[in-house]
């Protein structure tokens, strides 16, 4: 009898323990789950670590403030190892999970075409970190959104930089991958509209090239013969500093302009003293402390920078900025969803985003524009004394 009573008590305690999460759930509201499909291993591991840290911090902040109308946010993070197959599997897995209305990632351009196609088929919103490219834009996909500055905006802004500097003739040395080639093409198109002579070199480079000297030796006669005013290193990642280093070692003193991909600390570290004087246009989060007093996104950037420093000991950069913006765009869209959040409602809400302020600028999506940012969200930057320094030209906002 005594044994029986003990058993009964134990069973009741166990039942209560088991039921506790359900009871607790009833008190709060069910979380909104966000799928995250990132290159956490492989060559981009260090970059995506920052993305993960920044996203975790922002989600915790949102939840501490009471979530989205009482619903907390929850990240479901999967690693794709910079592998197309795994990125696709993750995307399908998220799509089959009915609790997930949106997937963030991938980070890199080669993976986006695949996840976009899956997003379109499975009808789930996909927010992609890298810029869109002309090929995917041509598809007019309804379910995919990009948050980085597009190749068109970057090229327009860079043409303005050339006009401000008075460059009349620019030689472009593009990387041999779609995004770099489209950057070069748009730069030529916009530049020639404004009367700048743009020569796109037939010599290209690959992302894995560790020595550009041979290509640059071939370009040197063109630089000297045509007397170009500026050399546009149209590339991203390690090739950028390598090009500048090799160029200077060959004794070419032509000013160098670069893409927004030059706005990362490790680029200066790789290029060393050769990087002095390189100019480009990039997101405002590259220079958090040098923004205009009346810049509408300044308070957001300064606050986020402070919190990143306090928690991870490392200030804001473009990478963390993208992560911040992705989370807050989702937050904003969820907030505007009326009633129960469905995938279709979320998509429509995100597409209706108007003038949303975040680290990289002011996002406005529309059925015809899934890129969000505009060229005004890019600032001119010059590398000086091993640091990024904002430069301003009268007449160019």
């Amino acid at each position, binding site marked *: 009898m005594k044994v029986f009573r003990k058993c009964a008590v134990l069973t009741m305690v166990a039942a209560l323990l088991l039921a506790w999460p359900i009871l607790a759930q009833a008190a709060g509201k069910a979380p909104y789950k966000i799928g995250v499909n990132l290159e956490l291993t492989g060559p*981009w591991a260090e970059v995506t670590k920052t993305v993960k840290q920044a996203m975790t911090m922002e989600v915790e902040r949102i939840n501490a403030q009471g979530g989205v109308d009482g619903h907390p946010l929850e990240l479901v993070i999967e690693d794709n190892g910079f592998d197309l197959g795994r990125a696709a599997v993750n995307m399908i897995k998220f799509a089959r999970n009915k609790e997930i209305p949106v997937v963030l990632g991938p980070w890199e351009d080669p993976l986006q075409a695949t996840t976009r196609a899956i997003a379109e088929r499975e009808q789930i919103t996909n927010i992609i970190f890298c810029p869109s490219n002309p090929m995917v834009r041509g598809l007019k996909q309804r379910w995919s959104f990009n948050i980085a500055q597009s190749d068109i905006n970057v090229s327009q802004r860079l043409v303005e930089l050339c006009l401000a500097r008075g460059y009349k003739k620019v030689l472009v040395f593009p990387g041999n991958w779609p995004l770099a080639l489209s950057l070069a093409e748009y730069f030529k198109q916009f530049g020639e509209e404004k009367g700048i002579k743009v020569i796109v070199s037939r010599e290209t480079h690959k992302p894995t090239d560790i020595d550009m000297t041979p290509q640059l030796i071939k370009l040197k006669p063109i630089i000297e013969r045509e007397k170009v005013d500026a050399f546009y290193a149209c590339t991203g990642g390690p090739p950028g500093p390598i090009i500048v280093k090799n160029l200077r070692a060959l004794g070419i003193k032509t000013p160098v302009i670069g893409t927004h991909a030059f706005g990362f600390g490790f680029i200066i570290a790789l290029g060393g003293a050769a990087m002095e004087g390189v100019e480009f246009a990039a997101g405002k989060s590259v220079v958090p402390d040098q923004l205009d007093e009346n810049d509408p996104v300044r308070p957001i950037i300064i606050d986020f920078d402070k919190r990143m420093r306090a928690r991870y000991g490392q200030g804001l950069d473009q990478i963390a900025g993208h992560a911040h913006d992705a989370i807050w765009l989702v937050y904003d869209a969820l907030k505007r969803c009326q009633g129960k959040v469905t995938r279709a409602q979320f998509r429509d809400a995100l597409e209706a985003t108007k003038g949303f302020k975040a680290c990289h600028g002011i996002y406005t999506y529309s059925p015809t524009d899934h890129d969000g940012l505009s060229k005004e969200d890019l600032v001119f930057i010059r590398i000086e004394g091993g640091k990024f320094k904002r430069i301003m030209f009268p007449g160019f906002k």
Partner: protein
Amino acid sequence: MDLLGLISQLFASGITMGAIYALVALGFVTIVRASQIINFAQGEFVMLGGVLAFFFIKGAGFSYPVAALMAVISVVIIGFLLHLLVVYPLRKASALIVLMATLGASIVLSNTSALLFGTLPKTLPPFSGDLSVQLGGIRIASQSLWVLGATFCLLLALHLLAHRTLVGKAMEASSTDPLGADLAGISRNLMVFFAFGVSAGMGSIAGVLVTPLFYTSYSAGTLLGLKGFIAAVLGGWGKNSGAILGGFALGIVESVSVAFIPAGYKDGVAFVVLLLILYFRPKGILGSPFIDSRRW
């Protein structure tokens, strides 16, 4: 700049790359002569040399020369460990199995480096600043001169090691005539052990030399290892002189080829050269002790 000027400038940049290929090729040959093993972790020694030197400067705060020395010593120890943990236990297995084992070791080494030191590319400052020297119409980065000078000294040191020291002579003997060396009481396993150390040392010095010129990252070893292997085959598989000649030849051909074809195909040139060599002269430029020339 006329075509001649262009070619001479490309030639100069090819020599630098050639010196690096030569060191990697020599690393392959040192091990293959001692043990008939193709060590596919050779490229990782180069990568580790650069990455560890970077770590000792930035992470541990040592001065440049100390950090470089410590990087080389660490890689030599890794080379010894590679022999003790991977190659020695498989000494009775077939060459193919050992080859797969070294391939596995190379993957382990590169991924360990990614885990410990991160995946972002790293670089070291040039030994004597960002100077470049003008020679006639050619401009050469001062680091290139360092690479050439150090390669020359290293080759000289290797030559002296092989011909003037007891250990070196024993290694030579063991690779020239293994049975004879066995009879003379030279432990072949010990010689292979030393060969791994020497080879790792050469690879890591190449890594420290080349990192300021370009950059290094956890995955940089694979391509350098492959190119070094091609250089060794090109010059004559299993010959020290062949490895050096092959390295410089490959570097120069690769670089000068850019004058005639778009640079995007530069990496392909090395593999085309390898194919041509395998078709028409499989024993390499200087001939190979491992390939029976009568069959060709």
